[in-house]
């Protein structure tokens, strides 16, 4: 573990150079420890794959002292990480042709039928490695190497909210309609971000995520939207 200052009031903690479930677990357990032990100083905290960026209030503490306190706090956090029990989040997904916008491209690239792609995607348990890009956008890994696929050459201008996508060895859901270049394989009816809700997003760092396949009727019953008008717009873009 290495702690370095990045600007006047922020430090970055590097836990490892490689992305592994163990590192994700260590980071997930360190975040609440930093938040509770140093809460009078911490302004914001950004966990990612192998690091945590922490900004603090310079009026209450100096850079040197904050770094020392952090070091001390984290040496204790390591013991806690072994006990961590990751939360499991189960999300329903409709993999139907109306919403799997890149099914053809994925099949062509992988040489699999879309049914095979779905089976592989839905039978893997993922970890939340990072949250970013947009509010509530969680980077989940790793996908099975058989369905590895690069991002689209030209990103879509509008990816519908709830779209489940894959890129490289990762999978993610777009919480809100936004531009995006990942390959879309399905859609969840679950609302992923709500600024009115206490915990804002269903994801948290280090959590385990599984996808459950649902049919169209269930998708619609759960409030899922097929958005035909958005689809036609996208065909124009592509």
């Amino acid at each position, binding site marked *: 573990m290495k702690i*370095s*200052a*990045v*600007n*006047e*009031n*922020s430090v*970055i903690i590097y836990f490892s*150079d490689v*992305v592994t479930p163990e590192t994700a677990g260590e980071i997930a357990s360190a*975040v609440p420890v930093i938040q509770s032990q140093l809460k009078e100083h911490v*302004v*914001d*905290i*950004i*966990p*990612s*794959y*192998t*690091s*945590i*960026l922490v*900004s603090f209030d*310079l*009026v209450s503490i*100096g*850079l*040197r002292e904050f770094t020392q306190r952090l070091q001390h706090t984290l040496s204790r956090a390591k013991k806690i990480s072994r006990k961590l029990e990751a939360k499991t989040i189960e999300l329903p997904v409709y993999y139907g042709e109306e919403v799997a916008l890149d099914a053809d491209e994925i099949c062509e690239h992988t040489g699999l039928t879309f049914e095979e792609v779905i089976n592989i995607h839905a039978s893997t348990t993922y970890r939340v490695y*990072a*949250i*970013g*890009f*947009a*509010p*509530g*956008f969680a*980077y989940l890994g790793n996908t099975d190497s058989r369905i590895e696929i690069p991002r689209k050459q030209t990103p879509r201008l509008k990816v519908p909210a709830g779209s489940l996508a894959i890129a490289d060895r990762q999978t993610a859901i777009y919480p*809100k309609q936004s531009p995006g270049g990942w390959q879309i394989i399905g859609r969840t009816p679950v609302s992923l*971000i709500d*600024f009115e809700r206490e915990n*804002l*997003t269903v*994801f948290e*760092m280090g959590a385990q995520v599984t996808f459950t396949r649902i049919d169209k009727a269930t998708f619609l019953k759960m409030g899922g939207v097929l958005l035909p008008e958005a689809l036609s717009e996208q065909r124009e873009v592509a």
Partner: protein
Amino acid sequence: MTLRILTPGPLSLLQDLGRYGHQSIGVSTGGPMDEHAFLWANRLLSNECNATQIEVTMGQFSCEFYAKTTIAITGADMGAKLNDQAITPWQSYLVKQGDRLTLSTAKSGMRSYLAVKGGFQVPTPLNSSATVMRDALGGLQGSGSKLEARDLVRYSVGKPELVKRVPPHFIPSYDQTVTLEVIPSYQYQDFTVEQRERFFSSTYTVTPKMDRMGCRLAGEPISCQRKTLVSEGIALGAIQIPADGQPIILLRDRQTIGGYPKIGCVTSKGLSQLAQCLPGAKIQFVEKDLYQAEADRAIEQQFFQSYVGKANHSKIEVEESS
């Protein structure tokens, strides 16, 4: 009581110091691009540091006050007029019901701040009024919209404040040739000595590709030995070096994580200077010692926080009618 926006100009946004504590789920902080000017506007009115103001970008802004109050204008000089009378920025003014403020175009710089006594009273989703359009958060309705003509922005009616002026020593000139202080950090060690020298000895130009998220520069390309980097948290002022070698300085509305190598961070003082630079401005970088930068920043923050509540204990009278 309200302020009525007559013309919003290209971009006028409600901002406080920013939205903190939610970057872990990908929410950008937002906040004033020129924090120095923002903090002075609140100080002129003995407001809390975090009181909400209007950040006017590129001028063409006008508004009408529906109740008396004291206002302050800081930042770029946009030829402000109060009821057709020219007024200068970095000063507070008393306004009466029906007074009109107009800002035309900036003589130098590009952002002005308009503060009212007690701050504008707007929703604070996730504890901040800061407008981040991309995240659909903050602003007049809380949903990330910029100000539009006919918008009504609430404020409280206060006892008239003493009219104050910022000491000239603290008023920047908004030159379009600036030297920004850089704290070497992040992947600094992954840039060769030669590349670092090139970075610190070159002059870069601000391109038109600049917004509240980041400022793209053009000039001598810099290369990093490290080609792959696992995405990590991006601090305010981080200088990203993408594959084309052209630096991007990340600003208030930056994304929370990213995977480009970073040579260091521009200091908060430098970011306030950069906030007033137009496309075409010339930028040079100079290395700044981390602990010196920290001390400068701490002194500045203490200076702006120390006066709050001491200068004026008068009660704010809230009038509901308009």
